[in-house]
């Protein structure tokens, strides 16, 4: 079992902070280069991706201390999964509509 119940060590915290900072810089760089045409599908995509929080809900769901915690996790799984499913599907639908040239050929 991963030790998510153990108290975090100082080293964990620092490593996580480093990851957070690197991810911020990477994110800012990546998003800066996203085509302006695609800002709407970008939003639905990042939305779906950040719903990887479903993983956190699953971890809590696997080891709930009481039924209150269990149900909070169940609701969270349902909410996050609906975002995951509809997020990727809508992004696909939107991207399918973008055509480069007249006559409707897809690029």
């Amino acid at each position, binding site marked *: 079992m991963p030790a998510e119940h153990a108290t975090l060590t100082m080293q964990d915290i620092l490593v996580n902070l480093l990851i957070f900072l690197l991810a911020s810089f990477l994110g800012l760089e990546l998003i800066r280069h996203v085509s302006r045409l695609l800002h709407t599908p970008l939003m639905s995509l*990042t939305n779906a991706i950040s719903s990887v929080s479903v993983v956190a809900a699953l971890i809590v769901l696997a080891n709930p201390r009481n039924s209150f915690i269990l149900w909070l996790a169940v609701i969270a799984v349902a909410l996050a999964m609906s975002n995951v499913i509809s997020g990727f599907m809508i992004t696909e639908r939107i991207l399918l509509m973008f055509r480069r040239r007249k006559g409707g050929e897809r690029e």
Partner: protein
Amino acid sequence: MSMEVLVQLLYVLAAVLFVLSLKAMSEVRTARWGNWAGSAGMLIAIVATLLAHRVERYDLLMGAVLVGAIIGIPIALKLPMTAVPQRTAMSHAFGSLAVALVGTAKYYQLYPDIDRFTMAVLASEMILGYLTFTGSCIAFAKLQELISGKPLIYPGRNFVSLLVLGVAVLSGIALVVDPTQSALLPVMIIAALLFGFLLVMGIGGADMPTVIAILNSYAGLSAAALGFVLNNKLLIVAGTLDGSSGFILAMLMCKAMNRSFTNVLFGGVGAPMPAAGAAGGEARTVVAYSPDDVAAILEGARLVMIVPGYGMAAAQAQHAVKELQDVLEARGVTVKYAIHPVAGRMPGHMNVLLAEAQVAYDQLLEMDEANLLFPECDVAIVVGANDITNPAARTRPDSPLYGMPILDVDKARTVVFIKRSLAAGFAGVDNELFYLPHTMMVFGDAKKVVTDIVTALKKA
């Protein structure tokens, strides 16, 4: 290889796929591949988690996934493109509530054995999550027009909002000092919920592109904070990517309006203002033209620029506009579209609507490109946009719009302005453009007017 190592490797793979998926969004050509990469990353992350953590209540898990699918799939399949901003607000609400609920569950799970660092992260995660939830719900209600899009303004509004936020933050700090004071948790949660509600109630409809981007950023950041609490690096990476995406989009929107974050969040712009501008000058008259007059002008045109705004979405006029483009192109006219960054109700809104109507995306020009072209334009047709074309932004230092980058529609030889009525735009400012000698005002529903112009052109 131990299970633990395998799971961590799968998490790394998922994180890499998420990064690649955003990278692929830099071009339309690769964007679909990016979406598939993101989906694959998500699948891998979920499978890895289920490998590492034995869920006993598989019935509940399956039930939850099923409910998620029942909510998610019909929305994804049936959603009209004009309603994408609403659905985005809704997904921010769902995402942030999920994160906030897991944070709450985690508090009770760890209780009373919570160290201060974990509590500090949990508290900020919950405050951010819950305020994003109610804020996004209000944004959804405003976009769906369940409630008025006008900002709710009352004396001392910002004081009340900040007071409520203060209660949330102070309860959070008290919890960090002593994490076992569980009675403070509901106080903090309710204050955060109330603050999100008050914050977005005070923001007007046309500021929604910025608000949605900010809420996007908050939802991502709260997911990243949850990653800190669970020591889950994948969650930190994915949440941070989402957070920075929302942040950049919000910055772009603010820049496109020449306003600051603070001004958007607390400025209450868009409230009905005392008629300062209108009362100032003499009564000016506007000549109303008919769709037939417009068709006559278009017959002699060689370059036509179409400037869409929220009104095109509201009237569902994108297909009619594409028909106009087709008729003009059949006559040898070059047709381009000028897209202002804040046109519509979310970043990129106009591009999606026009893509839906099968307008080729190389005909969609960004503001800078379009502004170079306006002086050569024979006709500029404004469909449901207003403030983003107002020359007062360039010329009148006393105007609330002054300094905002606009589309230089007035430089076209003829301006056709399709508008429902002579009402002022969102910013409550009269548009100089209406009174210019080379402007033709056509009043009516955008879709009907455009269709009438098409009919007239076909007859000619």
